């Protein structure tokens, strides 16, 4: 089967941004694929723009990286001129400017999340085309198809920080289970008035879903642990 190693790097991806009572939680998987090959199984798709604003990247790896780099550069200058931290809204609008004006060439969907003193925790979704949508929570990437129903049922307003992070980890994990373009570890970034916390949930620390089995070191362990007839039907 052709692996097509020359295909452009694409982050199939599952990305999520969720507001809670006091800030935001951003989450993502860690798989970057080149065609059918997993080019990077531990990528970091949650990228820093400023101390208080981060962006989740999906779609073309190159496009999302270059857009993030430009916006980080613009925001750095803006912060110096303004004399105080940039707001999440300004960050989102700068990304929109690049996404909209280059819509024919870019193929990246982004979720901007952060905390500022004026509006608190905010999430902005910027899909293909350059529309900006402020939302209490946002999902994106190929894996998000499997999460619309989940969030319709599981989302609620004013969650605590712990509830929000658990929701994000559960959701990314569910998407990884069904989306071939998502996989690896679950990364989360929590942003609030106190600062930023990065967390890392390796695949084997996640809950098991339907038809998934407890990982073992070897069949031999099962054979030795079990009783007299382990190989019988």
């Amino acid at each position, binding site marked *: 089967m052709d692996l097509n190693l020359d295909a452009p790097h694409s982050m199939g991806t599952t990305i999520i941004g969720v507001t809670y009572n006091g800030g935001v939680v951003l989450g993502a998987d860690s798989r970057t694929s080149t065609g059918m090959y997993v080019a990077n199984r531990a990528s970091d798709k949650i990228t820093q723009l400023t101390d208080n604003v981060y962006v989740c990247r999906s779609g073309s790896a190159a496009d999302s990286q270059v857009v993030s780099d430009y916006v980080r550069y613009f925001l750095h200058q803006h912060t110096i*001129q303004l004399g105080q931290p940039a707001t999440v809204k300004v960050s989102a609008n700068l990304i929109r400017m690049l996404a909209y004006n*280059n819509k024919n060439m870019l193929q990246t969907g982004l979720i901007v999340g952060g905390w500022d003193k004026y509006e608190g925790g905010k999430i902005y979704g910027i*899909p293909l085309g350059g*529309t*900006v949508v402020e939302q209490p929570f946002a999902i994106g990437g190929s894996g998000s198809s499997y999460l619309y129903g989940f969030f319709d049922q599981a989302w609620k307003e004013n969650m605590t920080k712990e509830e929000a992070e658990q929701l994000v980890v559960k959701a990314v994990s569910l998407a990884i289970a069904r989306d071939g373009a998502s996989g690896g570890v679950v990364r989360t970034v929590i942003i609030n008035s106190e600062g930023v916390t990065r967390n890392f949930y390796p695949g084997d620390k996640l809950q098991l879903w339907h038809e998934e089995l407890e990982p073992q070191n070897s069949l031999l362990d099962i054979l030795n642990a079990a009783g007299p007839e382990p190989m019988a039907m």
Partner: protein
Amino acid sequence: LPVWFSINADYFFLQFTIPIDNGDSVKTAEADSQRTLYPYVTGTSIVAIKYKDGVLMASDMGGSYGSTLRYKNIERMKAIGKHSLLGASGEISDFQEILRYLDELVLNDNMWDDGNSLGPKEVHNYLTRVMYNRRNKFNPLWNTLVLGGVKNGESYLGMVSMIGVSFEDNHVATGFGNHLARPILRDEWHADLSFEDGVKLLEKCMRVLLYRDRSAINKLQIAKITEEGVTVSQPYSLKTFWEFKAFNNPTAGAEGSW
């Protein structure tokens, strides 16, 4: 905006959006990086009517992403200045850009500080020029716009499409609304509708669209423009009717059919 900021934006624009011209007037998809090919996040129908005190306009709050009903809180009707209301269907990012153009237009109008303000006729004309000129460059703003307003006691209702077709009428609709709502309006619209009758008429149209347009969602707003100004209602949902006997068990008389 500070000077350094616009330089950066222009620099970026120059670097990434240079039109490739090899002499052909009709460019291929690969060679032409300046042509909008297709919309991504789209809004569905807008329906609007003139009534006794001004104009009523209705839209749902959906933003579809292909066949997925992805966004359910998009406001597709916005007040423009003191006298107008703009509703849009089609690509939402292009609508957001149009709102930016109109912001600048209204700002410059206010800066004259001469007591005059842009009326709906002027705004409609501006939009027509913008849409038609983009169409001529083969790079349309992928929207159908509805512009309603009242100034000096006169009601105004007009429409502009993405190819620059522009006209005024007593009742207009975009997208599916053209096929499903306008026949209803042709039958039941009359001059000097009361507010209540106008709202009921629009709701009748929106309910049909809800039944028959796949990209419609059951969350809508109705906006009113009168001499006093513009008000957009809170989002609300319509009741729907499913209790026809024939709906209950359609294959009762012919088991195995559909």
